[in-house]
């Protein structure tokens, strides 16, 4: 069961990466980082449940819970930044923010 689950986790991560690179809506870009987190959660839990050596441990699930805390923090900060940028420019287009210089 380990290998299929790890494969699915890798596929989720790759899909999230593609979305992160190609989408232009700032909110969807942040949603794609959450997609990558989902793949990682799956991987961590799978490696904890079906370890390569020894018996199953709870370390994978513990790591995944810390990852949930990180993801929640990232979502809160990222969305706060998105709201601020939207109030600043009035658009969610990532291309509108490609000039980083203060005008």
């Amino acid at each position, binding site marked *: 069961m*380990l290998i299929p689950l790890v494969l699915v986790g890798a596929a989720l991560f790759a899909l999230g990466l593609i979305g992160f690179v190609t989408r232009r809506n700032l909110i969807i870009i942040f949603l794609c980082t959450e997609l990558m987190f989902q793949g990682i959660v799956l991987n961590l*839990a799978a490696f904890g449940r079906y370890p390569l050596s020894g*018996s199953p441990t709870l370390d994978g699930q513990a790591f995944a819970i810390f990852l949930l805390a990180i993801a929640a923090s990232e979502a809160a900060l990222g969305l706060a930044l998105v709201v601020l940028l939207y109030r600043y420019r009035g658009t969610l*287009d990532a291309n509108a923010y490609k000039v980083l210089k203060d005008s």
Partner: protein
Amino acid sequence: MLLLTLLVVVGGIGLYMAMPRGRTAPARGVLALLALAAGAMLVAILINLPSGIVTPARPTMVALSALALLAAVRVVTHSRPVYSALYFVLLVLANAGLLLLMQAEFLATGLVIIYAGAILVTYIFVIMLAQQTTGKAAYDTESREPLLGCFAGFLLLAVLAGGIYGAAVPGSLERSGTGGPLAAEAIDAQPDLAPTAALLSDVNRLSEPGPGHGTTERLGTHLLTSYFLAMELAGVLLLAAMVGAIAIARRQLSAMEPAA
């Protein structure tokens, strides 16, 4: 290995075609055909993988995996942000099902509560706050460099999947020395074969599957003993993130208003 390569190629082409691209509507028939082919190959690979014992849970796992990947593709390709967020909820539910199959009950419920309940509600609030225009915006219907993005992403997936598959199937990577032993170990380490006494003796271990043997209590003990300091640090991190989010979102724009 051939099937895996084919799956990655077909998936890449399908995702590239499904990417939102301006006014030209994607050919739905070709897309459906590609999705069907990719799904069939995925199911074939997942069922035939020789990793460990084929348990009764294997069909459920394959179905949930296919659902999760379908939802993930729709998250990436849907041109309406609200639907992307809703497909993400579907992905979280499928993922929670996969975690349940791994006897990670607390993690599964936590995932549904935190992701589907809290984070996605925040996302949908922000989408409603920021998307005041009726109809689709141009930056939603047009993706940026879809060909290069899909190529890079699926190249990464091909490398990862090839490595994982090579570790699972001995001999599929001829010149790699890591194939055999790793696969043998992975098969050996199936918890169904491990002695029950060793599992139950340690608070660190999962209990033997069965009714009434949830892992929440063990996980809580594990978190508050082995990872005590990390738990406290996670609390500090969440507090800092909350304060930071409030500070960022409450900032007055009058001082930094653009000239326009």
